Structures are given as C-alpha cells and as structure tokens.
C-alpha cells in the first residue's frame, strides 16, 4: 500500500508540475495578449482578441473526459501512447492552457489603469508596459491564479484515471473502486486532499511574500 501511494504520488506530482509549467509557457503570453488587445487594453485589436478568445472558449467548453477520448489519435501520434501518466499529459495541457490564459488575462486587467497611463506618459512602449508594469504589478494575482490552476490540473489528472491515465486517481479507481477495496480508494483521496492543501499553502505563502502592498 505504501509503495502504491508513493508511486501514485510521484506520478500525480509529475503530471501536475509538467502540465502547469507548459500551460503557463503558453497560457501566460496568451493571457497577456488577450489583456493587451481587449477593447479597453493598451492596443485594442478586436480581430486578435476575438480569435484567441474563440479558441480559448471552445477548448474550455469541451468536458475533460470527452477531450481525452477525442484527442486519442493526436495523443498517440504526438506522445506515442495514449494511456498511463504520459498519455494524459497532452489532453491535460490542452484543457489547462486556455484556463490559464483566462486567469492571466483577468490578473493583468486588474492592474490600475492609472499606473499604465503613467508609464505611457513616461514614454514606455507597449512591450515595456507589459514586461515592466503589467507582469510585475500583477504578479501576486498571477501567483494566486497559478495556485488555482495547479490544484485544478491536479484534480483533472486524477479524473484522467478513469480514462487510462496514471497517478493517484488511477490507483483509486483501478485498485480501489474496481476491486471493491474502499480502503485504497479513500487513502488515495486523502493523499490528494493533502497534496492540494500543500499547494494552497505554498501558493498563499508565495503571494504573501511577493506582494509589496501588504507590508
């Protein structure tokens, strides 16, 4: 049982970390582009905004389990397998990055318009405003969003256990639910709860440490 927990835990953390990382690699710039091109943004551009928005909305609307099955051929082609821990990385990423983009967009839009106006008055280019104002000023909010994203991705990775994924969720279903071994199922649930709590605690601490408005 202990080995089982350890294996599941390792896989779950692996999936969560890898997917959260890549979701931010794509979602952060995408969210910033959304914030900049929005109607009230620095460089309003309805074409760009609406196109990205459409992609984001479509991907976010597809239920995750259905997305896994829909993406089977693509996943097999890209990753080489569609089952196990590796097999769910791609669908997890595809459902996570649009969510991250929206989180980042809303964080960036929280930045005081006056501060942006002030930086423009000092001769900042759009790029400089994004890099030197939007991101640093929104950082506490972005980190708080990242905490939500990571716990959500962890939850989805567990859900992927139903469709042949790996990690704690898969163990709960394959060893627990399918074999009527409720002790295993509940143990895995407990471990997931603990991991989520840990992420929340870490996230809150990083927000607190990064935010200079609270001191």
């Amino acid at each position: 049982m202990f080995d089982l927990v350890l294996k599941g835990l390792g896989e779950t953390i692996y999936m969560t970390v890898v997917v959260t990382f890549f979701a931010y690699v794509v979602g952060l710039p995408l969210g910033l582009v959304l914030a900049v091109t929005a109607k009230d943004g620095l460089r309003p551009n309805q074409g760009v905004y609406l196109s990205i928005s459409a992609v984001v909305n479509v991907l976010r609307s597809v239920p995750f389990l259905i997305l896994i099955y829909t993406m089977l051929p693509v996943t097999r082609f890209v990753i080489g397998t569609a089952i196990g821990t590796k097999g769910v990385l791609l669908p997890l990423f595809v459902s996570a990055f649009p969510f991250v983009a929206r989180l980042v967009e809303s964080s960036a839009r929280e930045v005081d318009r006056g501060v942006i106006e002030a930086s423009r008055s000092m001769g900042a280019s759009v790029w400089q405003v994004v890099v030197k104002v939007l991101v640093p000023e929104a950082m506490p909010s972005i980190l708080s969003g990242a905490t939500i994203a990571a716990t959500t991705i962890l939850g989805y990775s567990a859900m992927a256990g139903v469709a042949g994924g790996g990690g704690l969720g898969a163990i709960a279903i394959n060893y627990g639910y399918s074999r009527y071994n409720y002790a295993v199922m509940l143990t895995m649930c407990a471990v997931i709860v603990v991991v989520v709590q840990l992420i929340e605690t870490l996230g809150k601490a990083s927000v607190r440490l990064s935010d200079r408005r609270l001191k």
Partner: protein
Amino acid sequence: MALIEIKNLCKTFGSGDGAVHALEDVSLDIEQGEIFGIIGLSGAGKSTLVRCINLLERPTSGTVTVDGADMCRLSERELRQQRREIGMIFQSFNLLMQRNALANVRFPLELSGVPRAEANKRAQELLELVGLGDRLRAYPAQLSGGQKQRVAIARALATNPKVLLCDEATSALDPTTTESILELLKNLNRSLGVTVVVITHEMRVVERICSRVAIIADSRIAEMGEVQEVFLHPQTEAAKKLVLPSRAGKLEGFVRDGESRAVDECRGSLIRLAFDGETTDRPIIADMILSLGAPVSIVYADTRSIEGRLYGHTVLQLPSEPETAEKMRRWLTNQGISFTEEE
C-alpha cells in the same frame, strides 16, 4: 516661441448623437519657465486638455506643439522620445506598487536604457531633492499621500523634462500637505527651470503658485491672463464662480431677503470693491464712512495672498439714498479703488 503651443484644439469622444465634445477650439501658449494654471470645474475638459499635451489623448483636430515638435505628427518612436521631455504627475500618484521608492524613480530611466548604476545614483539624488532621502527602500504602501506624491514628482523629473504636467496633483491631499507639495513644485520650477502646468479645480492652488491661468468652462477657454488680473477682475460667470466660490449663494440670499438685515438706510445697491496689493492695507471702508458720515453694510469680504501680495474682494451695500451712494462711488474713484456694480 512659446514652449507649449496649443492651436484650435478640439477633442470629441464618440461620434454621432452620442458624441461628447470635451474640448472645443482651445488655443493657448505656455511660456518656457512659467507655472501655468488650468482651472475649471469637474467635467470642464481640463484633464482631457492636459492629456492632449503629451498625447495620452489624441486631439480630434488642431495642433499641439511642445518645444518645437508638432506632437500629432510624430511617429510612435519619436512620440515616446518626446514624452521623456514631458513629466506628469497625477491625483492618484500612480506609483508602481510592487517597486520601492528608488525603483519607482529609476523606472523612466530604465525605459530609456540608462545603465542600472547610473540610474540608481540619479534616482537617489532626485529622492533627496524632494526630501525623501531616508525612504529610498520604502514601498508606496508604506508612504503617506504627500510622500507618495513626492516620489511621483521625483519620478516625473528623472529624465530631466522641460515640462511637468500636474493633473489635480494635490486634490487627494490635506491642506497642509497640499501646501508643502505646492511649495516643492515652486522650488523645483525656480531651481531647475522646469515649466509647470497645473490642472486644478481649486483657485487657492492657482493663487499659490501660478503666474498665469486659463479658466476652462464648458469645453472652452472662458478667460485667460495673469492670476492677479483674473482674480481681481473676473470677466465671465465661470471665472466669478471659481474666484468667489461662496459669493453667488450668499449674495442671492441677501438680495432676495425682503426683510434685509441691513439697517434701513443701507438698502441701496451692491458694489464689489477689488483691492490689489497697493491698497489692501489701508482702512478704506472705515475712512469712507468717517469722511462721508454715512454707514455702509459689508455683505462679503475675502482676501488672498498671491505671490506675497495681498488681494481682496469686498461687497458693500450702499445707502438707499441715491445721493449719498453716488458720493461714495465718487470718493472711492478718487481714492483709486476699482469697483463694479453687482447685480
């Protein structure tokens, strides 16, 4: 040539029936080294006007020239360069909340690619100049309103601009802090020679530091001139409202009141005396009463200090007997006191 030239400036927001004309045919020149006030009530268009100077708002028509450069014709890159010649401070300070005071002042220098060490040195000098040499590492959240505005001023001056635009810079501050910030602006104007444009809705701010003033009302310039002149002889209704904010209501109440509280013989017409610095310290009204042997009623009085000279307004109600009232008018004219009849 004036440092800032605004010609026939119009700014319209929206179009069609929903269009809002924020500025209509505004022209004014601001000279190198002066402190120029732009005053108006909320919604008069003064904030839009100041944003048209550094093109945070693009004028619908008309031209804005700053230091010889036609702002509307500059390319994106040239405009960013030109904006470094125009510092700006705001009512809400607009400091970067995640940067300390030093890093805030360093910010415009980073934007123009000044090396870090040099930028830090300059930022520190500027913070010392505005009296915050001991708060370099403080974050905005740890500073008071007045201190935040000082950081903002230091930041606005970091690139050695020719112009400093102040958009309601003291409106969020208490009277004592306002006084100290105005004093600082005046000193910086003297020591650095930076031209200051002050946007405000408060006449006392204009009186305190400006040499010239433009009054904006209903999207247009209602009146413009030397501060003393506008203060002593406001021509338009908009100017009168700003110069004598409490006058209108008081006088109306006074005249409408059938049972006037003035003694019977003082129910004549109202006149408004304007004292300039020369005559303020003479007991004019007492002299007049003593030499003519007839009483007057003082309805309203106010004095202000502009650039160290005392200016004042007094509204008198003259005796009801026309002959005595006429004598008083002649006496005042002979004494060199200017006055106008109040409706």
